[in-house]
């Protein structure tokens, strides 16, 4: 049960977090800009919103699952030290 929960949590390391945040932000803003021009050129706001929705789904796929690219820099924990009992 614990193992399943750990997998579902999808933890990634700190470098990965920064990367995923940048990717998400960039991808959403680009989707928004493309959606604006699409709606302008196609004379249809609905179409522009569909483009944006597609961009959103792509962003989710790129950012939410813990891809290995986000795990390239695992945290180097100190080795476990046994405390000497006094």
């Amino acid at each position, binding site marked *: 049960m614990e193992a399943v929960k750990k997998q579902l949590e999808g933890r990634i390391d700190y470098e990965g*977090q920064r990367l995923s945040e940048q990717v998400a932000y960039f991808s959403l803003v680009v989707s928004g800009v493309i959606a604006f021009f699409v709606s302008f050129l196609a004379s249809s*706001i609905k179409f522009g919103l569909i483009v944006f929705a597609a961009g959103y789904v792509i*962003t989710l796929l790129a950012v939410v699952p813990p891809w290995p690219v986000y795990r390239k820099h695992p945290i180097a924990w100190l080795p476990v030290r046994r405390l000497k009992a006094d």
Partner: protein
Amino acid sequence: MFSAWQRLQNTSSWALSVCLTLLAVISVSSWYVLPTVPLGSIGLKSFQVVPGSGSQSNLEYALMRLDVQSDLTPLFANWNTKQLYVSVVADWNSTVEGTQSSVVLWDRIITRKRPEAAKLRIEGLKAKNVWKVRRGGFKTIPSCHLSLKYDIMPYVGIVTPGIGARARNPTWNVTTETATNSFGEWDIAVPGVKSGGVGS
């Protein structure tokens, strides 16, 4: 951002912000570049003041026929225009105590699906809402402005009004037994009303 759930949450709220910004930019940009419409014309074909009968005997009706011509198609060139509400409006100032009044004589909704309807060319348009006032009320109306007004309904964004046409000469004068417009182009008899029809 360490867990998948966190990433889902954060990404979704950013996406919502970007989406709302997108809609706001669409609204403002389409409002900014709203095209102007070449001013059309309204001609008064005939005008008659008729007293009401029976239960409506305390009222007077103005029966009129108008020629309306206006091309509103440039408004649909804007991608954000969903439809137009078009109305022929009569504005007048009554001699009674600085009162200003407006009534809609005729209206129509033109949707984007049928933009050919935006080329209005109606001859002999009859008022949908008959202009009626109290008996003797038309005497207190010296002149009236007829205009064709439009209101733009956008797909998303700001609601904008505008004027599509004006009566070529904005007022008419009715003197004693006959009504003439300022061109003198036509004479209209005003039966059933004692002295004068509309105004002076």
